[in-house]
């Protein structure tokens, strides 16, 4: 059991999300940075999908009520356990009574606290992720708050194994796009259904603009500012399914990227879609930061997942060895 001591808005329990329920109108939810979540779980020997706390408002504090191994992954941040520094992308064992404090990130937006055994709230429609809008999953379908007692599951492996080791952060280890150039994140996208309805000039604007992720951005979607994409004639779209990463252009002309908590349906023209291999990086992009889009074709977009899968597989194999030492 762990006890939440300090939690500001919008910190929730998330796993890899709820698949297969879109047809009931249920968005997937799930970690905004699934690679960080899986990495934390790999460090601890959990299933990759074990539920964690996604911390996106700081400081965040919790108290351990038992000896529990945990890991911190995701955004680069300062943290302490019982007053001593804990490195990011590190796992260690807390003693009952220890207080973990997580400060604001230096880089990135979301920190994942994973626990050996995973958070053991009930699965709803196959997932423990919090669905804030509909009020289910996680702890009573809501954000965490001080006083919450959160159950931790039984570890499936050997809890006596070694902890106190770390991993190279995913954004450093995984080659992908050119990393941050002047703190601008390059995001690879594929064209989507209505790309060609935009004029050459508007397409050029889309590709050349350095877009700012506006303050009106959250787990539901990122609203971008910095340019306007307009159509010569309005397009009447019928309501259709969408997935996280889709870049839609509402009549205002300012694109919106749908993220983990996005509505299951959309009705705006879709100019592009962020590829799976970059969506987790986007999940770490904070409001106020900048992105540019670059085009990738289907074949290369599929191939771009190989370094991500390879990173996670190597991390799991190494962590399994360390724990056995």
């Amino acid at each position, binding site marked *: 059991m762990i006890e939440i001591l300090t939690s500001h808005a919008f910190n929730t329990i998330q796993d890899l999300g709820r*698949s*297969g*329920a*879109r*047809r*009931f*109108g*249920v968005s997937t939810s799930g970690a905004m940075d699934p690679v960080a979540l899986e990495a934390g779980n790999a460090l601890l020997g959990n299933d990759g999908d074990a539920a964690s706390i996604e911390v996106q408002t700081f400081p965040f504090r919790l108290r351990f009520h038992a000896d529990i191994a945990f890991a911190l992954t995701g955004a680069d941040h300062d943290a302490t356990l019982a007053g001593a520094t804990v490195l990011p992308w590190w796992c260690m064992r807390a003693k009952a009574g220890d207080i973990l404090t997580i400060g604001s990130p230096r880089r990135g937006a979301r920190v994942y606290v994973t626990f050996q055994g995973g958070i053991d709230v009930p699965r*709803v*429609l196959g997932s423990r992720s919090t*669905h804030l*809008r*509909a*009020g*289910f*999953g996680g702890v009573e379908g809501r954000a965490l708050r001080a006083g919450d007692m959160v159950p931790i599951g039984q570890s499936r492996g050997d809890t006596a194994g070694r902890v106190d080791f770390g991993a190279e952060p995913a954004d450093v280890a995984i080659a992908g796009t050119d990393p941050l150039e002047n703190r601008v994140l390059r995001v690879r996208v*594929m*064209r*989507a*259904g209505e*790309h*060609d309805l935009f004029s050459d000039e508007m397409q050029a604007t889309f590709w050349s603009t350095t877009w700012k992720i506006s303050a009106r951005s959250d787990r539901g979607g990122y609203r971008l500012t910095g340019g306007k994409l307009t159509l010569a004639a309005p397009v009447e779209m*019928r*309501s*259709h*399914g*969408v*997935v996280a*990463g*889709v870049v839609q252009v509402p009549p205002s002309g300012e694109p919106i990227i749908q993220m983990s908590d996005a*509505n*299951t*349906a959309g009705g705006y023209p*879709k100019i592009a*879609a*962020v*590829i*799976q291999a970059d969506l987790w990086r986007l999940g770490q992009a904070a409001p106020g930061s900048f992105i540019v889009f670059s085009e990738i*074709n*289907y074949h290369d*977009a*599929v191939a771009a*997942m190989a370094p991500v899968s390879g990173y996670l597989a190597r991390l799991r194999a190494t962590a399994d060895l360390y724990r056995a030492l």
Partner: protein
Amino acid sequence: MSINHRASPFVGALEKDPKISLIGTLAMLVEASGEFDLVQQGRIWALADALSSWPNVQEAVVGVTNVMLAFEQPPDDIDTLAADIIELWHRLVPRNADGKLIEIPVVYGGEFGFDLPALTVRSGLSAREVIRIHSEGEYTVCAIASSPGFGYLHGLDPRIFMPRKSVPSLNMRAGSVTIGGMQTGVAALTSPNGWNAIGWASVAMFDPGREQPSLMAPGDRVRFRIDRIEL
């Protein structure tokens, strides 16, 4: 090459082919051509039913004259998959609106039907006339989308058509019976909502603990019954 590119052989090759496009590597949208009608929507249901059992299809999500496929893994051969779907589309027998009949008792007007007065002004009908027309219709669930358990209902009498609001009502209560354009529906969540509320129903549209979490499913029929009128 991606089929989203203009050079694709499958986009608009035949007028009656559905438009097929990718949304990233894990989703594909199949859009029927032509106007909305229930026969076309019935083909969409049939297509979704068939595609849901195809390998690698995590789910087939019904929209309004379209289906989105969510994949477990990026498909190996997108062009062949698209061709197979088009081939299936042309030989599909539409599914009728043969789902269950759902009867929903409605408290029309009152505290939660706060847009009823505006609808009477717009339609030139009395409130009782609007309520009679709405409650005499039989509606078909076209799709479940947008929020958990929310059904897009087709079959609204054009006399009580009312466009969606440009500024949503901030806290519309779950169970609100609403009109949005030529569709009607029952709000499944208490949340901001751009549709027009004309009444309220004490019906759990969605319960994640149920085996079928959504009360409505595509192809179901819905009747609204007057439980009470509060004017």
